[in-house]
């Protein structure tokens, strides 16, 4: 930390996609980039991940839609959005115009909806990757969330993989609310997933002690923020260990470069900054700068060398700088 700007090769690879750096926004926490562009150039990010889009316009749920919790928040938005056509015409067009690499998150109530979304996005020059949000109730299975069932997950991912432009990586975004996330990951991998986005929110609830009823209009909601970071890091670690050849986009409570580094060391090739944006609109670019500095401080010449580093056995490690626990 000698004041010199760090010179770390920050490029990263998400399957066939090369990004100039590994820091992205998180779906639903950056809309489609336009508002954040008031605070920083969205083209400076690895990519913008857009809010999950569905076929039709959606109102979302009744308010209240959020509750702050210790080091976290619950949300119950219900995927409010304009529908795929308006999204392509306005949001994607704006992103293309501003030179932002774009990961489009798609969501559906049944497999066909996902497939149709992938088709509509094929060939659009602004789209760099698809993130498939399978934390949605499957209307054909009495509302069970796709991501909580290996078969439903693999069916959606397989169908999207077949429908999507072969040059676009398809990432499966998994839910931590499962008994064994590696089983779902493996099913998605077998179905052709090119990588994983880990993790979506945890199902949570707050009771309002004034009204003595659930605080959210939707009853339960998704828990995000630093509170869930240890769960997210664990999921990244487990999936990396189970499927070391597939890239991971890690997320869940990242607020600083050192937080991002935890995900990278656990096996993520890139990270999304979500809830932190609400507290600090320029968090993604700050996290990027801090991560580069942190890698430089630790002697990494390239981000790629740090990906999964915490899995190495002691013998395969760099000689770590002696951690000074206390003076003496």
């Amino acid at each position, binding site marked *: 930390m000698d004041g010199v700007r760090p010179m770390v090769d920050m490029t990263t690879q998400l399957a066939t996609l090369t990004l100039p750096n590994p820091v992205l926004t998180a779906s*639903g*926490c*950056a*809309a489609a980039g336009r*508002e*954040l562009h*008031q*605070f920083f150039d969205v083209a400076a990010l690895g990519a913008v991940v857009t*809010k999950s889009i*569905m076929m*039709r*316009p*959606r*109102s*979302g*749920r*009744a*308010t*209240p*839609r*959020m509750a*702050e919790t*210790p*080091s*976290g*928040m619950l*949300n119950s*938005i*219900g*995927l*409010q*959005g304009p*529908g795929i056509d308006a999204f392509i015409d306005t949001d994607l067009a704006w992103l293309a115009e501003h030179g932002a690499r774009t990961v489009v998150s798609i969501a559906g*109530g049944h497999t066909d909806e996902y497939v149709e979304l992938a088709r509509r996005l094929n060939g659009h020059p602004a789209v760099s990757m698809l993130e498939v949000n399978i934390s*949605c*109730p499957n*209307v054909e299975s009495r*509302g069970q969330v796709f991501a909580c069932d290996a078969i439903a997950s693999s069916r959606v991912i397989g169908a999207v993989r077949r429908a999507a432009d072969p040059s676009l990586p398809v990432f499966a975004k998994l839910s931590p609310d499962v008994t064994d996330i590696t089983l779902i990951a493996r099913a998605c991998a077998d179905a052709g997933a090119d990588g994983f986005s880990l993790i979506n929110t945890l199902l949570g609830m707050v009771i309002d002690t004034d009204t003595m009823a659930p605080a959210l*209009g939707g009853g339960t909601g998704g828990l995000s*923020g*630093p509170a869930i970071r240890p769960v997210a890091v664990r999921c990244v670690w487990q999936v990396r260990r189970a499927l070391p050849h597939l890239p991971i986009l890690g997320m869940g409570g990242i607020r600083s470069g050192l937080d991002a580094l935890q995900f990278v060391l656990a096996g993520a090739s890139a990270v999304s900054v979500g*809830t*932190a*944006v*609400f*507290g*600090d*609109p*320029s968090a993604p670019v700050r996290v990027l700068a801090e991560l580069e500095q942190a890698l430089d401080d630790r002697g990494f010449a390239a981000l790629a060398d740090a990906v999964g580093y915490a899995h190495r056995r002691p013998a395969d490690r760099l000689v770590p700088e002696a951690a000074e626990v206390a003076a003496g």
Partner: protein
Amino acid sequence: MTADTVVSKPVQETAEIFSVQKIGEYVQFTVVAPGIAAGFQPGHFVAVAVGGDNTSMLLRRAFALYGATPTGQFAGTIQFVVAEHGPGTRWLTQRSVGETLDVVGPLGTSFPLPSGPSPAVLVGGGYGSAPLIPLARELVAAGSPVEILLGAATGSRLFGELVAKRTVGAVTVTTDDGSAGVRGRVADVLPDAIERIGAEVVYACGPMPMLRAVSEVARAHAIQAQVAVEEAMACGIGVCMTCVLPVRGDDGRSRFVRSCVDGPVFAADRVRWEDVGTLPADVMGADAMGGH
């Protein structure tokens, strides 16, 4: 009502606290934030980080701007008024001069101004009067006759009576408990005020039930009301979709719109007051809500 609302261009600033003043149950802050001051229009708000380093409170708190002095003896300053509500506002009210706050603003839409002089009644509930004061100044400067009505549950929760009187002269005060001014609700005295000055527009800021009552009075008098709403906000900058309420558009269709960027100021007759907090079946996209 032809002039448009001014949508803000927000910046994030580390704002030194220039003064902290206790006023009744409220605390009034003046902080140095030249970038925010430069863009300020009445109705805009700021979002302030609370709790300091290592806090468990992730989200910013929203406060309407009470004023801004873009230049002067010091770099530009802004003012806002804080009512202690929960842990975030409690933390704020404990700050001292010289400390800094992390502030994003100006945010949201401003009160649309009439294109020429036009009689107006301004209705503030509790700290809701704060954004009306700079609005009153602009209206008066433009030659509009202005009356201000201030209401609160009790006298110590009134805000801005003196400065309101200095600004417009005609001020009426109500309190629910009669501890100051007329006993009753502030909307009760609105019809008289409208008639007294032949108001062509009402501006209001305060709790939702008050805004709804104001909206009804304005409708009964067939005049416009512009109201600044207060919905829980996670981001304040338009990216999260937590702060929505059902609003009718020019096309007659209702949508859930974001009160942080499409508001907080709305034409009162466009807000579907009775449906706030519900999912009305005719809101755009409600038909697609199957289960989640």
